[in-house]
């Protein structure tokens, strides 16, 4: 009996141990390499090593997948070359927060031997590595994180951004709604840095335009599954409209519950574009139809580059591109232009070249340029419509070109 038991214990213990180890290895965020790493670190071979830092585990994984696809598509369309250099992509797992993201970037800098880095979803991670990136003189193009400080208070000559800033997107909506004179607006966002920046950006622009705020709620970030308690606050405030910023799982819950609790019909819902961007839109379903948001991209932007981009992306991945894919695609584009311009891969030369690029005229989002190292770009007012069974963010109008506020 005893022998029998201990045998089973050994087997069971081993099995679980092996499985756990396997999972740990998958999520451990080791450096993965796309192409064989031959050639060492020599400059003469005409290769450029670029670190792609994207979330491969955790809640931001869908964003990471989109960024990887945008990056891959650009390389494929350009023969895997940037300005004459053959690109070697070294992928690193950013994970959810700075606890995993910062070490991943440290590894890229020390062991990855990279000439430049692209990616980063989480603002705290982007802010956490600014100093090391500057010290190592390796340019980093932030392809999502929207914190203002990345290119303001904590700005570095080596940190660039191909995405947006939180207040840039929210401010455009504030200005537009104030112009429409829709009445008091209730503002909601998750209670963390990005949510607070969106609320501040919207409130400032909306009140500057003469609007009034009916009330605001900052909901606990990551632990709010049920928005009913806050929705009853919207109801009792007498707001004429609601403006929110949510992303991922919270965006799905919020939009659905906003409809379930009957607010959609009485109080129009406006938001920062991430509310209805990418895979969350499919999950939201009919509840999302009619929701209006602002963002610097939509698949429905009517220009030739975007049409071609959407077609190519759909052909390659059988799904519609997202703003996350475009941000990585554009990061590849500006990096290629900088390499072409400078003809060398040193960080100093690359950063200088990035600063002199001027207008980027072949982006799916429309023309944009670096102002203080972050995009000055058009922001679009979008509305979710059902297009033959597929939900898309149709473009209502272009609200004009906005720099970082």
């Amino acid at each position, binding site marked *: 009996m005893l022998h029998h*038991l*201990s045998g*089973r*214990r050994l087997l*069971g*213990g081993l099995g*679980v141990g092996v*499985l*756990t180890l396997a*999972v740990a290895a*998958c*999520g451990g965020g080791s450096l993965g390499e796309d192409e064989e790493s031959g050639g060492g670190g020599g400059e003469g071979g005409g290769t450029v090593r670029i670190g792609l830092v994207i979330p491969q585990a*955790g*809640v931001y*994984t*869908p964003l990471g*997948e989109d960024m990887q696809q945008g990056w891959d598509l650009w390389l494929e369309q350009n023969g895997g070359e940037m300005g004459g250099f053959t690109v070697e992509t070294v992928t690193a797992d950013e994970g959810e927060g700075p606890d995993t993201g910062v070490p991943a970037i440290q590894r890229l800098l020390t062991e990855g031997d990279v000439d430049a880095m692209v990616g980063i979803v989480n603002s705290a991670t982007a802010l956490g590595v600014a100093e090391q990136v500057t010290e190592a003189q390796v340019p980093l193009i932030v392809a999502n994180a929207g914190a203002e400080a990345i290119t303001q208070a904590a700005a570095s000559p080596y940190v660039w951004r191909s995405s947006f800033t939180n207040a840039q997107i929210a401010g455009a909506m504030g200005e537009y709604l104030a112009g429409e004179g829709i009445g008091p607006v209730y503002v909601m966002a998750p*209670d963390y840095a990005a949510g607070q920046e969106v609320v501040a950006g919207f409130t400032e622009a909306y009140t500057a335009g003469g609007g009034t705020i009916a009330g605001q*709620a900052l*909901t*606990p970030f*990551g*632990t*709010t*599954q*049920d928005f*009913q*308690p*806050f929705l*009853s*606050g919207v*109801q*009792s405030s007498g707001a004429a409209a609601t403006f929110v910023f949510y992303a*991922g*799982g919270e965006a*799905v*819950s919020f939009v*659905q519950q906003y409809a*379930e*609790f*009957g*607010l959609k019909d009485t109080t129009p819902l406006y938001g920062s574009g991430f509310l209805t961007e990418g*895979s*969350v839109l*499919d*999950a*939201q*379903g009919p509840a999302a139809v009619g929701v209006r948001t602002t963002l610097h991209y939509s698949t429905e932007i009517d220009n030739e580059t975007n049409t071609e981009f959407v077609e190519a992306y759909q052909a390659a991945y059988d799904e519609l591109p997202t703003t996350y894919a475009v941000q990585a695609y554009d990061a590849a584009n500006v990096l290629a232009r900088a390499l072409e311009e400078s003809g060398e891969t040193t960080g100093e030369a690359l950063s200088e070249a990035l600063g002199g690029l001027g207008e980027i005229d072949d982006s799916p989002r429309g023309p944009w340029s670096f102002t203080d190292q972050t995009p000055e770009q058009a922001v679009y007012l979008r509305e979710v419509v059902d297009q033959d069974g597929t939900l898309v963010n149709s473009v209502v109008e272009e609200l004009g070109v906005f720099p970082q506020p």
Partner: protein
Amino acid sequence: MLGWFDENLVSILNGFAIGALLFVLAVGLSIVFGMMDVLNLAHGAFFLVGSYLAVNFVAGDSWGGFLAALGVAALVGLLAGGALSGMTEPLARRPVLDQALLTLGISLVVAEVLSIVYGNDVRSVSPPPGLDTSVDVAGSAYPAYRLMLIGVGLVLALAVWLVVERTSVGALVRASVADREMVSAMGIDNRKVKVAVLGIGSMLATVAGVLAAPVYGARPGLDETILLLALVVVVIGGLGSIRGALIGALVIGQVESLGRALLPDVASFILFGTLALVLIVRPRGLFAGKVAHS
């Protein structure tokens, strides 16, 4: 007073709905730990399995799909609980922490497998036909599905209580907690009782997952959030007590709903504030299990 009640009626009602859901979720965890001394940290992962099964059977399209999801989830829960019982058996004489580590490992594996099978996107499930509308409650719209949850929770609470307190099966379970050696000496295999209790406890987790799918959806990471809530409910209610799990779930339901509506500024702290308060006043929970551990 009446005006205040009117104003907050929807929040109070919602507190009951969330409380009912939390009860279904937490009672399994409470029974398993209180009666069998196994702290099952895979409870949240089992819950998520149920939610994804609801996605699989597209529970919203027909009652058939919804009931099929419930049935399959119950079966999967039973089997998973049985397997878990076998895995924890070799650790039965080791400290509770060892078992907790084992179940934590299992929960990580299950969550990773789910992420491989279903991807990392957020999935949503619409309520079954007839319940996918909103009804008018005191002038505000309220989702019909959540009203049904209150009924389901009450029925289940009654059923579990009846089984444990009024049947011979329940007596056997209570007896094996009070004195396992004595029960064995009477010719009853203690391990079989453990398999049954873990099976039913895990079944309640997967069933709660299906029931919660139309409210919470299914996504990676939901398992951890849910496990935390269940642990808070169990600690507040008192381990191993059905009544405690019910009261704890209803209290947390109101705290999460009415509490957040009344005090939105402290919404982040109110849950753990309540937990801390209960721990200070009643360290063993509001209703600690009647049967003391030897």
